[in-house]
């Protein structure tokens, strides 16, 4: 209600604004609105989707120049030209975005900046674009007899377009698609593992910023009716960047505020433009260092400083319903009679059937063999332990199974289907969920949003609904939120639902990651060292949670160094050493095999407890020469691996 009143007040104020402004002031406002639309586009690409796009000014230029060329050279009407200009801007956005499929961050920044320079180079030299003089006498856009040559009347056209553009951008950022984009920004690997189609999402970001650039360009052509290269220069790109950073790139409203504010400041300092440039350059540096979230982030920062009370507590886990009561024969994992079959049959595989088959997988990194002819079969309904010394290839195995690595040779079959080298999102949608050894939660999303990303099982091609059926998106979002709340309650995270995960204790973060993985309703759950960093009580809770997850019909594979947990939890254990499977069987049998004792415990017979030491991101390969059992040899091979990776 309060929001509605604010909205109406803003609309009325915007409606009345021209009555209080002089002829030049309205021109300044018109230009500011155009920059605001541009800023939204840049905010969507950079702040929301994390794509460093320094070609936004070129998208703007494509829109404006397309209108200019099509109206003056091809004699098209203004609005026909405008529609084609939007199309052109979107296409250029798509093309400029292509490099994002192969590279990110500074690489992407420099390539897009280079392409923006290429565009400026073209418009300054091409005869069709009027060379350095630009193109003048673009016709006044006709609108049912309304004279849009008047900047006052053009203001209202801009206002309507801007309101629609802003509303769509806000809707998008708060929708499942926007959440996926933000998840991708925070951690694209984890987002992929949660079912987000990273390449398509990156292209979506560029298409959006192309679209907004195009809209701004069309408005510019209609307002100024003259285009020249200097408007689309790199200096203006950096001005636009400054607007978005100062306003707060992660908030669409912040981008708008920054754009409007800086446009006005620039106008005020027009006579001393070198000082203005000096000023906004310094402000950008100061904002980046002292207020990285920009103007938009200030209220939240102040609030956080004040509200720091109210202790929250981790609730207890509420077990899943058992699919069927098992007729227990807990002594022997192999011989157990599995009555839980039907539930797993839902997922297309009967219990006792092979859910995952890894067949002769070899993974090499530049001469280092991380996995050497690894074969194992995971039966539906079991809890499988994967153990082995650090650097024995356990995480590499997970990375192969979850699609991060394409193995050098060998096959991976999931539910009897070959999935070797399938993209992580594809595996995620097929029903493979995983957690990460070093926790890959989306740091700037709340706990609830983290879980919502997991719950969203749609493909990206579903996006046509955002334009055609926005209300169905809202309905879908409502359903997701209900289910998120159920999961949050089940995992006892009620008190933390709206907190940012990075501020929470480690044990809670581990549980959030587990809840997020379970949000995918997987058939196979891969847990990478879920007990690392947990205390005794937390480990006990973890065991209960994993058992309950299995009882609900999910097959679990767990990498773990905590041997007590492995022995009590797992039905079967696979031991890796030096990238090879050296043992496979019931925990009690495996633990006494001499090979395992030698490889795993080394000569010292002391249980390894370096659980947190193994870096998950490293492929953790080691030389094929043999198992490194002593830490000295191990660190030597680790650094050799790192060296090779460099």
């Amino acid at each position: 209600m309060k929001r509605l009143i604010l909205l109406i007040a803003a609309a009325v104020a915007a409606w009345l604004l021209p009555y209080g402004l002089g002829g030049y002031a309205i021109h300044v406002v018109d230009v500011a609105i155009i920059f605001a639309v541009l800023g939204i586009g840049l905010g969507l690409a950079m702040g929301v989707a994390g794509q460093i796009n320094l070609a936004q000014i070129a998208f703007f230029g494509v829109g404006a120049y397309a209108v200019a060329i099509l109206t003056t050279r091809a004699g098209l009407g203004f609005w026909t030209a405008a529609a084609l200009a939007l199309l052109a801007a979107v296409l250029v956005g798509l093309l400029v975005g292509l490099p994002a499929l192969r590279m990110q961050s500074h690489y992407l920044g420099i390539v897009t900046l280079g392409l923006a320079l290429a565009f400026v180079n073209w418009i300054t030299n091409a005869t069709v674009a009027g060379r350095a003089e630009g193109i003048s006498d673009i016709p006044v856009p006709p609108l049912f007899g309304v004279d849009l040559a008047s900047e006052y009347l053009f203001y209202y056209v801009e206002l309507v377009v801007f309101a629609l553009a802003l509303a769509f951008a806000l809707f998008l950022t708060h929708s499942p698609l926007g959440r996926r984009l933000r998840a991708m920004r925070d951690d694209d690997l984890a987002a992929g593992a949660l079912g987000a189609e990273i390449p398509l999402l990156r292209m979506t970001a560029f298409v959006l910023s192309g679209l907004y650039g195009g809209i701004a360009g069309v408005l510019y052509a209609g307002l100024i009716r003259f285009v020249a290269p200097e408007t689309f220069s790199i200096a203006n790109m950096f001005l636009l960047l400054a607007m978005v950073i100062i306003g707060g790139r992660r908030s669409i409203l912040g981008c708008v505020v920054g754009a409007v504010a800086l446009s006005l400041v620039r106008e005020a300092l027009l006579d001393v433009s070198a000082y203005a440039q000096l000023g906004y350059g310094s402000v950008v540096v100061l904002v980046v260092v002292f207020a990285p979230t920009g103007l938009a982030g200030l209220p939240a920062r102040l609030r956080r400083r004040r509200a720091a009370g109210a202790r929250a507590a981790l609730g207890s886990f509420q077990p899943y319903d058992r699919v069927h009561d098992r007729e227990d024969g807990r002594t022997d994992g192999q011989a157990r009679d599995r009555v839980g079959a039907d539930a797993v049959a839902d997922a297309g595989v009967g219990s006792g059937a092979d859910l995952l088959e890894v067949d002769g997988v070899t993974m090499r990194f530049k001469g280092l063999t991380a996995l050497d002819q690894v074969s194992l079969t995971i039966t539906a309904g079991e809890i499988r332990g994967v153990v082995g010394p650090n650097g024995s290839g356990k995480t590499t195995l997970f990375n192969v199974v979850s699609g991060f690595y394409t193995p050098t040779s060998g096959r991976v079959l999931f539910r009897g289907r070959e999935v070797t080298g399938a993209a992580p999102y594809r595996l995620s949608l097929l029903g493979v969920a995983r957690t990460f050894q070093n926790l890959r939660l989306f740091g700037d999303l709340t706990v609830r949003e983290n879980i919502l990303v997991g719950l969203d099982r749609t493909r990206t091609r579903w996006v046509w609904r955002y334009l055609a059926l926005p209300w169905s998106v809202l309905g879908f979002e409502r359903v997701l939120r209900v289910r998120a709340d159920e999961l949050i309650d089940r995992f006892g995270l009620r008190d933390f639902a709206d907190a940012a995960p990075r501020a929470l204790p480690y044990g809670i973060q581990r549980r959030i990651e587990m809840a997020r993985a379970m949000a995918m309703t997987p058939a196979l759950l891969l847990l990478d060292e879920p007990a690392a960093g947990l205390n005794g009580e937390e480990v006990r809770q973890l065991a209960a949670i994993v058992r309950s997850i299995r009882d609900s019909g999910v097959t679990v594979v767990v990498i773990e160094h905590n041997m007590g947990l492995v022995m009590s939890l797992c039905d079967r254990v696979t031991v890796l050493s030096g990238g090879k499977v050296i043992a496979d069987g019931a925990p009690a049998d495996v633990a006494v095999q001499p090979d395992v004792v030698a490889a795993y415990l080394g000569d010292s017979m002391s249980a390894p407890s370096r659980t947190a030491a193994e870096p998950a991101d490293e492929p953790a390969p080691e030389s094929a020469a043999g198992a490194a059992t002593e830490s000295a040899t191990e660190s030597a091979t680790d650094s050799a691996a790192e060296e090779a990776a460099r």
Partner: protein
Amino acid sequence: MQVFLQTLIGGVTFGAVYALVAMGFSIVYRTMGLVNFAHGNVVMIGAYAASNLYMFAKLPFPVAVAVAIAVTALIGLVIERVLRPLENKDFDLMLIGTIGFGTVLEAGAIRVFGATGHAVPSPVATAPLDVAGIKIPTYSLLVIAVAAAATVLLGLFLQRTKRGAAMQAVAMDHEAATAVGIHVGRSNAMAFAIGAGLAALAGGLIGPMLYVNPTMGGSLGIKGFAAAIFGGFGSMRGAIAGGMAFGLLDSFAAGHFQEYSELVTFLVFAAIVMVRPTGIFGETTVNRA
């Protein structure tokens, strides 16, 4: 054939300067993982400092360049100090912060030196050498020789001195470097100063080849950066190879496409980087699991 060789010489000369710019990028990036978008503007400041001292203060060219190096090294230290809170934290913010610095430097240069630039006379006044009909400007030879000498000296510093080794260690793992007692802050500052010094050397050398003006930093910086990516970001030999490759691409594009050379250069660059994002010698930090 003659035209080809003439273009080749021009390309190698510019390539030598791009290599210096790219090495400046790379040494900062290696040591502290910071991509310094202000680097091009530091080159511009270096060009101004060197040319003004040479033309108006009548200092000998080598002295003018040496003073310019000192000035920009100081600027490098300032940039590093201000952005220190962000080091090894938020990559994108650092990137944007350096863009902000670049804007400040450019605006400052417009304030101090005016918006229009000036041409710089060549410090070597002899006629071009004539080798089988191809004219080799003596200044080109000087540029190539100085760039080569700077490369060798930098290599020796990194490989043979304790300070250089410490910088390499910080580049590999800054936490481990701290653990063995290396002052990471000092090492970073030194990397930044060296990078800025290389920028001034490049700027001083390119002054007589181009028109010195406040906006030259933008395109030089982007080209040097592109050269660094070409060769493999963070790799020193990559910077040299990339600089040469980019210089050649640049000068052949200028020969064949005249005013559209920039368009062609950056399109070709984008295409090559698409095919091989890690450059010639490769960097592995792009998109790793």
